[in-house]
């Protein structure tokens, strides 16, 4: 077949997280999003590739797939494009099957499936540098001979990492041949058994695993994947992570708080009195400072997640929890997104992209906002400090137990909601969890730092973008219109937000919420923690930041509110969908207004009913 005069169509295929998108970027000079979790690409992307030989190729980056027997929408896209069944998409002339050289046991299986399609193909052994570092030996010639297709090395994260692939493309562009049919390609044979057997045979022939690594993996897995010891170890790891998130973040948070306080003071001293100063100091600096303060917690949590991810432990944690979460309508893959949601629901919801099954993914998205994000902490701290005595029950601190109870209530609620959703959709199907269990390794500090930098920049970009814009709008709503000259109440009563707050009491009075709380719920729509500063403003206290607001607010609310109101508000914050960004992320990730509306409705309904019951029961018991 002569193809010199035409632009050939190449398709990059492979398992999730094998580096297809990184290779696509390297070859096309594109800047597609790359991440070290599976599921970054969920639809096909196209770019142009120019080889050193002067040829031009149209390069498709297809979604990752564990098998061509599609179990999800993105796998179906890959299958259909590869087979030439995708509507409006010509079949690719050549398939480049990207495999992770450090995990050939899983990835070769898919390469064999692709090979069975009978289309011209090249196998790109990606991450060869990492494989060498780990002592994995791969006999390229043997692999090429046994597979019957060209096999080349690639390192997608290096500038010259695609050289061998480009040379191979130049060499074979004029004469594309499908691979010769083999016994394993027989459609009548038991495909799964054949594939596994063939993979094992190829590994035995062409791959040498370091025996030490295999021994260490087996020894660790014996304990870490044990149904009892493994779960206990996981519980201890999680406990230590949360302890560290709260214990280690303190000094850094204090530093940021002091920094924003100093900035506010310095700017305030240099600006003339007036609305602009209020906007800058009370609005932008205090508002953004109140959000940036949580950066250390987020980074510490992500540092642990990245270390666990790099070490190879996270997939094992997902494996351990699969059965328990499946009973509640989730899957083991939900574990990591839900863990992320303890810092903030937004990265948690985004992390659900790695969940293949769309129903599991949707269920995880729906319950992710129930996880206690760090933005709720100031509210919990304020209310617990005001209403729960600082006394000990045995060796446990009573306030700490209440805080733990709030976290536990959120987790139990999330499991119950997902269970109800499973029953609601009458889903009795079993979704097998297919996960890579990579070898354990010591995380590379550089990789962890790069990951942290990326996470930090994403957060800061949000702070400087949508959160800044919302902060300015909220300040406007809380400031304008000003009080009339004959005003008797605080100016905020006359503001847009104040009027809305008074109107809201008609709905929230049965929950024990007064008009001040109702007003605080409005800025809480942008970020939950803003409710604390807002309460301080509403009570006309001059609080420069959240901590100061907490100190000053505590006696005011403990005197002014009943215990029933405080309990009702605590319960409200467990469930309430009071974060526009989370709802916007749900909309973006599900691409559905309906799902976003459902999330907002069910969270609001749950919050309202739970708070109503809490308040009414508390009043009946004499706490009103």
């Amino acid at each position: 077949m002569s193809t010199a005069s035409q632009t050939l169509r190449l398709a990059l295929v492979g398992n999730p997280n094998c580096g297809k998108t990184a290779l696509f970027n390297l070859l096309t000079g594109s800047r597609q999003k790359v991440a070290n979790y599976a599921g970054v690409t969920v639809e096909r992307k196209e770019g142009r590739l120019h080889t050193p030989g002067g040829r031009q190729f149209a390069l498709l980056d297809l979604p990752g797939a564990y098998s061509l027997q599609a179990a999800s929408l993105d796998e179906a896209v890959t299958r259909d494009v590869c087979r030439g069944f995708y509507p409006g998409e010509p079949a690719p002339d050549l398939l480049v099957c990207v495999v992770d050289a450090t995990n050939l046991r899983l990835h070769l299986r898919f390469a064999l499936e692709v090979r069975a399609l009978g289309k011209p193909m090249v196998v790109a052994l990606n991450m060869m540098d990492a494989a060498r570092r780990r002592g994995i030996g791969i006999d390229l010639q043997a692999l090429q001979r046994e597979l019957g297709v060209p096999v080349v090395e690639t390192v997608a994260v290096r500038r010259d990492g695609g050289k061998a692939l480009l040379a191979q493309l130049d060499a074979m562009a004029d004469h594309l041949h499908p691979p010769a049919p083999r016994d394993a390609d027989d459609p009548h044979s038991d495909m799964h058994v054949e594939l596994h057997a063939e993979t094992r045979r190829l590994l035995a022939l062409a791959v040498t695993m370091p025996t030490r690594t295999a021994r260490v993996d087996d020894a660790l897995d014996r304990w870490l994947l044990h149904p009892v010891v493994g779960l206990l170890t996981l519980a201890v790891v999680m406990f230590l992570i949360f302890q560290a998130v709260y214990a280690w973040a303190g000094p850094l948070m204090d530093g940021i708080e002091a920094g924003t306080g100093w900035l506010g003071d310095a700017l305030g001293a240099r600006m003339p009195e007036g609305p602009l100063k209020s906007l800058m100091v009370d609005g932008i600096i205090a508002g953004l400072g109140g959000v940036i303060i949580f950066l250390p917690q987020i980074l510490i949590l992500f540092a642990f997640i990245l270390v666990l991810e790099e070490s190879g432990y996270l997939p094992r944690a997902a494996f351990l929890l699969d059965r328990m979460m499946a009973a509640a309508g989730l899957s083991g893959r939900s574990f990591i997104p839900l863990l992320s949601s303890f810092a903030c629901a937004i990265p948690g919801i985004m992390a659900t992209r790695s969940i293949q099954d769309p129903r599991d993914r949707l269920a995880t998205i729906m319950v992710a906002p129930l996880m206690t994000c760090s933005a709720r902490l100031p509210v919990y701290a304020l209310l617990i400090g005001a209403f729960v005595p600082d006394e000990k029950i045995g060796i446990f601190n009573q306030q700490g137990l209440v805080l733990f109870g709030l976290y536990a209530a959120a987790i139990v609620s999330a499991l119950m909601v997902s269970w109800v959703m499973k029953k609601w959709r009458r889903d009795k199907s079993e979704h097998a969890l297919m996960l890579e269990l990579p070898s354990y390794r010591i995380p590379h500090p550089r990789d962890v730092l790069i990951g942290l930098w990326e996470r930090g920049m994403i957060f800061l970009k949000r702070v400087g973008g949508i959160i800044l814009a919302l902060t300015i709008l909220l300040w406007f709503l809380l400031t304008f219109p000003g009080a009339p000259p004959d005003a008797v109440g605080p100016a905020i009563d006359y503001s847009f937000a104040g009027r809305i707050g008074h109107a809201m009491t008609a709905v929230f009075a049965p929950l024990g919420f007064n008009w001040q709380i109702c007003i605080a719920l409005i800025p809480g729509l942008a970020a939950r923690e803003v409710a604390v500063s807002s309460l301080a403003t509403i009570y006309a206290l001059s609080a420069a930041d959240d901590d100061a607001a907490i100190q000053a607010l505590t006696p005011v609310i403990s005197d002014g509110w009943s215990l029933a109101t405080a309990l009702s508000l605590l319960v409200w914050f467990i469930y309430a969908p009071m974060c526009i960004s989370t709802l916007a992320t749900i909309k973006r990730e599900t691409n559905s207004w309906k799902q976003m509306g459902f999330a907002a409705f069910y969270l609001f309904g749950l919050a309202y009913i739970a708070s109503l019951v809490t308040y009414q029961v508390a009043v009946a018991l004499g706490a009103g």
Partner: protein
Amino acid sequence: MSPQLSLTLQYILIALAVAVSAWVVFRKQAPNAARSLRIALALPLLREHRPAWLRAFGKRIAPAPKASADGCGGCNNCETGPSS
């Protein structure tokens, strides 16, 4: 600068900040509606008989053509791309 003028200037700056913020929130939360609005605003300004400066202004507020598959990689930077 007199205090009155200073106050006027402050309100102008606040109005600008609020308008830009409202636009940013609108564009982020409703990108398709924002795009339609930009087109609706730009089209009358781009008519032949309009002065050159108005047409130039119309070109500035008109949205860029929707990226093709080659250009839009779903990187989420524009927040209008497909979820990937």
